[in-house]
């Protein structure tokens, strides 16, 4: 079998150093700092106003005609970066494209004033339409539209590593053959929430930041976007694409240590660095450059320096620099921006500088000077270590470098166990009061769901959690308080709980989950998306065991404004519900060896409702099967497609009817299906969700002792 290698054939960048990849990279290598006083808004008296702001961003020039009002800066940056990447890659027309973006605050800047205003109840329908840019997933639709449509989309939030994890998701789609091209990246715009929050945490440097320097005093926030075009080697060769670099390796994992502090020894970080190298078939000595996370905070840089020294040794020839001194910390975009810079470093043979660094705290790392320099590189790493210890390392090889000897193996996925928490659940009662003291309902549901699953053994386990909105009510209370009492009295301990990935991070720390941990956000289909991403990670061998689930906690703003506004079309909503569902997934042979399998994930399908179920590959029902259909979000058109299929006569469970509509319903459906199969009387369960013209289907098969 031919090695499936992932090519990077285009990059697009919007940053404080410029609104294109060439402009950004040129300024980066020259040592220009994009850091300066915040101009976008007045944050009041805060510790630091030094930020990496994208000046002169014209949303009007980027938004399609008639959409300006509802287009956020984050979306504009994502679209501009996507257009540049697509043009650089010479993406063919009508290609099968996936879009995956990391982010943390979406359209927060444009909507935070409106949502935190006391007269929310009086919000006119006309004004509430301007809130469509609020959720993280909003950028996906904008980017998809800008490139002529997407077959599959995903929004990833893992605090500050989402933009890197997006590339791992992209690789999974390509390896699975789901699409031929993926636009993978991240976008985050500056907003009051993050400026007030990071300042309240005392994490910001009042001066331009100095990653890895002995005198460093914190980070500077930034904003920007990056999009990379990824494709399979075979596609790139067949169409004669210019390959900039290869994404040969990656590792995703969590520290399960603390919601804001990194684990000081750097042990987990060095493990992930090694794992990424191993997957890429690289030795440490092959790596010419590491684009470090390097935020400029005391704790991150000390931890990261230890990890790098552990992997590369103290007399290493590997250059290390952090681009955050020049761009600021762009949060959910950072992993993608730095991946794009790493790719350009390989493609152009140029090593980015260590601006701001005068005296390193730890000797032994080979830091660059105040300006970059030319050097032919064989391979390079880009690492991202997010709040809550959610981490990702990407390994790129230069275009000229031969493929690694390892082959991509597609692994089968099993469901080990399932858990359901409905509206009557009191998740906080299942948790240790002291260790869960700051948890909101979303975090409590996530931690309780994980704790409820039966988990024999203590193997490394991850968590992929669907959260459509994050905690909007708590976020707006934080902002209202800042407005009423001023930035000095912003509650610092609240802030880490406001990022949409907080329930995933909290559950990871609570339950000691050290596998891949992140949140996905796909509005009505957040549960299905989390399940799909978790299956992908196991199938591509990035993880062995992952809890996949989704939470839809009670939230007055979601209930009154965002939920109804963003409800899927063609779905006649019953009343609104709340709840959560979880399944523990495992690589099939590992689950068998552990003696615990409820079901196998036999197939995952997605398609257009108008074309019908079989068109997307859903198998015809066989007469011998004892089967059920479980419906999550079921638009009228999905019911019609079901009636037109061979599955029409199979007894079905309609979960929206039972639980009301909520954004975690897909996860409830999948957990219900696994429980049904676990009872041993059925052979097959087909889980269906569909709205807005498209659907997803998952076919689960009972795994008996005879298998």
């Amino acid at each position: 079998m031919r090695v499936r290698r992932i090519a990077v054939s285009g990059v697009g960048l919007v940053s404080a150093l410029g609104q294109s990849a060439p402009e950004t990279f040129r300024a980066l290598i020259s040592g220009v700092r994009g850091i300066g006083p915040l101009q976008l808004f007045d944050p009041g008296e805060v510790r630091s106003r030094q930020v990496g702001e994208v000046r002169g961003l014209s949303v009007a020039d980027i938004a399609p005609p008639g959409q300006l009002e509802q287009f956020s800066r984050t979306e504009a940056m994502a679209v501009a970066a996507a257009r540049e990447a697509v043009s650089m890659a010479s993406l063919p027309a009508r290609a099968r494209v996936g879009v995956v973006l990391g982010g943390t605050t979406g359209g927060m800047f444009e909507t935070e004033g409106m949502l935190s205003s006391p007269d929310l109840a009086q919000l006119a329908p006309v004004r509430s339409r301007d809130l469509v840019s609020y959720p993280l997933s909003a950028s996906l639709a904008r980017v998809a539209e800008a490139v002529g449509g997407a077959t599959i989309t995903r929004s990833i939030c893992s605090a500050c590593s989402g933009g890197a994890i997006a590339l791992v998701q992209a690789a999974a789609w390509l390896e699975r053959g789901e699409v031929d091209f993926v636009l993978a990246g991240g976008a985050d715009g500056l907003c009051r929430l993050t400026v007030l929050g990071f300042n309240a945490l005392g994490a910001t440097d009042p001066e331009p930041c100095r990653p890895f320097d002995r005198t460093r005093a914190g980070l500077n926030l930034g904003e920007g976007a990056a999009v990379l075009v990824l494709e399979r080697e075979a596609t790139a060769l067949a169409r004669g694409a210019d390959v900039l670099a290869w994404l040969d390796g990656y590792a995703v994992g969590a520290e399960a240590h603390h919601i804001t502090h990194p684990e000081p020894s750097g042990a987990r970080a060095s493990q992930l660095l090694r794992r990424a190298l191993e997957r890429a078939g690289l030795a440490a000595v092959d790596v010419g450059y590491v684009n470090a996370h390097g935020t400029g905070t005391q704790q991150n840089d000390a931890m990261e320096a230890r990890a790098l020294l552990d992997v590369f040794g103290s007399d290493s020839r590997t250059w290390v620099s952090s681009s955050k001194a020049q761009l600021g910390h762009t949060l959910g975009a950072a992993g993608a921006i730095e991946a794009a810079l790493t790719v350009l470093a390989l493609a152009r043979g140029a090593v980015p500088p260590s601006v701001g660094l005068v005296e390193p705290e730890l000797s032994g790392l080979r830091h660059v000077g105040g300006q970059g320099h030319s050097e032919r590189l064989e391979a390079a790493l880009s690492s991202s270590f997010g709040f809550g210890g959610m981490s990702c390392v990407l390994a790129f090889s230069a275009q000229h470098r031969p493929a690694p000897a390892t082959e991509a193996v597609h692994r089968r996925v099993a469901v080990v166990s399932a858990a359901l928490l409905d509206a009557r659940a009191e998740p906080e009662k299942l948790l240790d009061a002291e260790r869960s003291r700051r948890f909101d309902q979303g975090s409590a549901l996530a931690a309780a769901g994980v704790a409820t699953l039966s988990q024999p053994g203590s193997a490394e386990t991850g968590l992929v959690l669907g959260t459509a909105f994050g905690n909007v009510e708590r976020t707006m209370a934080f902002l209202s308080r800042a407005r009423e009492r001023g930035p000095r009295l912003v509650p610092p301990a609240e802030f880490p709980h406001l990022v949409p990935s907080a329930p995933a991070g909290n559950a990871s720390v609570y339950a000691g989950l050290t596998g891949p941990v992140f949140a996905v956000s796909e509005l009505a289909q957040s549960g299905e998306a989390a399940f799909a991403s978790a299956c992908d990670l196991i199938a591509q061998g990035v993880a062995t065991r992952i809890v996949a689930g989704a939470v839809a906690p009670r939230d007055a703003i979601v209930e009154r404004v965002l939920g109804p506004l963003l409800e899927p079309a063609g779905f006649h909503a019953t009343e609104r519900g709340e709840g959560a569902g979880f399944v523990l997934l495992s690589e099939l042979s590992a689950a068998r060896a552990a003696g615990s399998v409820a079901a196998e994930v036999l197939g995952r399908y997605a398609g257009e409702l108008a074309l019908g179920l079989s068109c997307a590959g859903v198998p015809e029902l066989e007469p011998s099967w004892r089967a059920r259909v479980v419906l999550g979000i079921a638009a009228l058109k999905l019911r019609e497609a079901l009636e037109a299929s061979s599955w029409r006569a199979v007894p079905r469970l309609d979960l929206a009817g039972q639980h009301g509509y909520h954004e975690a319903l897909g996860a409830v459906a999948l957990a219900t299906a696994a429980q049904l199969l676990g009872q041993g009387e059925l052979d097959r369960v087909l889980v269906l969700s569909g709205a807005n013209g498209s659907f997803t289907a998952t076919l689960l098969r009972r795994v008996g002792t005879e298998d």
Partner: protein
Amino acid sequence: MSLGTSELKRRIKLALIEELDLRGKTEADIDEAAPLFGDGLGLDSLDALQLAMAIEERFGVSVPEGEAGRAVFASVNAIAEFLVRSSGASQSAPEAG
């Protein structure tokens, strides 16, 4: 109006319970001499930031950053001493409530 020391300590403990989400704990559960961080109440540096903000809000006194701040947060007694030492500490701040 001057606050008695025991009333001051009661208010400090109330601030701890409310601001640090010490669910299920009452004022009587908090030992005034015991360390707040590490082994005692098991608080961390995120709690310290929250507590500094709360003391500024409730008592109108700003807690210094770094080592000096750490000494202030040694125990309930240490916080009380710090508030008494700081001018106006034995009088509650105008907006405190």
